[in-house]
């Protein structure tokens, strides 16, 4: 355990302290991963909140326990579903840091319970009237057990959601699983969430910075992060295409994926929309808000890089269900591709419907080329090969 500098000058604390979430189903190795990562000096100034003390003992100076107390305000909208105890715990930490009673942590990691829906935890940070001025969301890291992960994805909707909202996926317990089982799980996760880089926990090269630090608000890394979204998605698409070719399932109609009705699946589909022309920011904002208001429960993830009319540099947007993060202005495009590109991870929604809706509400007449390409509905339905 690294030395934690005490009573650091308050002025050194970031204006918005990033909050990372480690989630994953019961027994998926969240605490083990956290214990390992906290040994890194780079996480020495990290505060940790956990829901429950499990069998794996954590020894960290800034470790606090929270109790769950879900609050859904009467007649409230879903965005205001907050976890009361979590908000209070973070407020306490914030006040104690301001008073110098605890080390001036520069990052907060929350370890959720295995059965937790990640969304209320994330909305707590953005909706709480105090926290939202001092904290911001960082990356969501999800652990998936190589031994039990596939069966959990089959029967536990929470585990599907945890994997779908991840910014980073960690497959744990690979030393206990066969290479085949691990490979099937990895393939399934890549189809479920093609945007998230996936790492095996056996990989000793897991670097805490890449898990927790390189997010959209990391000034030096945000373009890398956006490029990572689409690189991961591209790889997943290539792997998916290869699987279908190998299986003789290559009847693609302009990228339209033919689903095998005999396959079982989670009914989760990752789809990418690309647009050649810059889009209207106001029309896009109204459309996405409207879409998430009505279908946010089914839209697990949205990540996009947008060419906005009148803007030389792109804007990155990302959302988890109803919760849309603050849009980020990138300094430059991450690569030579200057098109707007938006990836949706949806449950039970049709890619063609979303494409058509975007064209009607955002592109409208003359607002774009209408050359919308639904890129292969990318990963298609998620199921075991």
């Amino acid at each position: 355990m690294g030395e934690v500098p005490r009573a650091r000058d308050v002025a050194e604390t970031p204006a918005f302290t990033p909050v990372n979430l480690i989630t994953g189903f019961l027994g998926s190795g969240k605490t083990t991963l956290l214990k390992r990562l906290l040994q890194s000096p780079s996480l020495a100034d990290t505060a940790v909140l956990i829901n429950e003390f499990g069998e794996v003992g954590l020894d960290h100076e800034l470790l606090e326990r929270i109790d769950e107390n879900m609050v859904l305000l009467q007649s409230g909208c879903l965005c205001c579903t907050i976890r009361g105890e979590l908000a209070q715990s973070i407020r306490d930490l914030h006040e104690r840091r301001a008073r110098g009673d605890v080390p001036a942590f520069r990052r907060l990691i929350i370890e959720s319970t295995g059965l937790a829906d990640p969304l209320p935890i994330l909305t707590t940070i953005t909706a709480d009237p105090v926290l939202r001025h001092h904290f911001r969301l960082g990356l969501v890291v999800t652990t998936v057990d190589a031994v039990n992960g596939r069966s959990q994805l089959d029967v536990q909707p929470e585990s599907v959601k945890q994997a779908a909202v991840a910014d980073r996926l960690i497959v744990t317990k690979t030393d206990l699983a066969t290479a085949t089982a691990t490979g099937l799980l990895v393939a399934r996760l890549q189809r479920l969430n093609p945007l998230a880089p996936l790492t095996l926990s056996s990989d000793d090269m897991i670097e805490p910075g890449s898990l927790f630090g390189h997010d959209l608000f990391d000034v030096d890394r945000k373009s890398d992060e956006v490029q990572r979204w689409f690189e991961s998605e591209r790889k997943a698409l290539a792997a998916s295409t290869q699987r279908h070719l190998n299986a003789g399932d290559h009847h693609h109609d302009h990228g339209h994926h033919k689903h095998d009705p005999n396959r079982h699946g989670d009914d989760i589909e990752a789809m990418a929309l690309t647009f050649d022309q810059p889009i209207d920011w106001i029309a896009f904002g109204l459309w996405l808000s409207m879409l998430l208001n009505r279908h946010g429960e089914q839209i697990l993830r949205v990540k996009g890089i947008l060419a906005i009319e009148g803007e030389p540099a792109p804007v990155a947007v990302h959302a988890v269900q109803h919760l849309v993060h603050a849009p980020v202005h990138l300094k430059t495009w991450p690569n030579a591709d200057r098109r707007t590109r938006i990836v949706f991870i949806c449950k039970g929604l049709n890619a063609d419907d979303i494409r058509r809706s975007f064209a009607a509400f955002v592109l409208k007449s003359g607002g774009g080329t209408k050359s919308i390409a639904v890129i292969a509905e990318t990963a298609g339905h998620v199921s075991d090969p």
Partner: protein
Amino acid sequence: MCALCGVIGGNDHWTDPVARDGVYVRGGSPSDRRRERTRRISEANQILRLFALTLDDWQGSAYVLRTLTGKTEIIDNLAALWPMAERIAGRPIDPLDSSILERLEQADG
């Protein structure tokens, strides 16, 4: 304040200006912000009229949402727009609704 929940200051819209490094903000000057706000209302009304609703500015600090029959609600920001619009319209406002899309596509020619 969230018009639906009564949470003070807890629910700005994600397209609202935020004083944070790196966040995409439109409308640097007061006149730019007014112009942006006017355009937002105009764009929103293009959608809302499909549901017999209108949106107006209220002193530059809130919005007034109305039905054709005079039912009126004030919302602080666009985060509350669609839930409130559904509430006073008494029906879902679904951008994937094929009948709505057909109307837009026909209007678009």
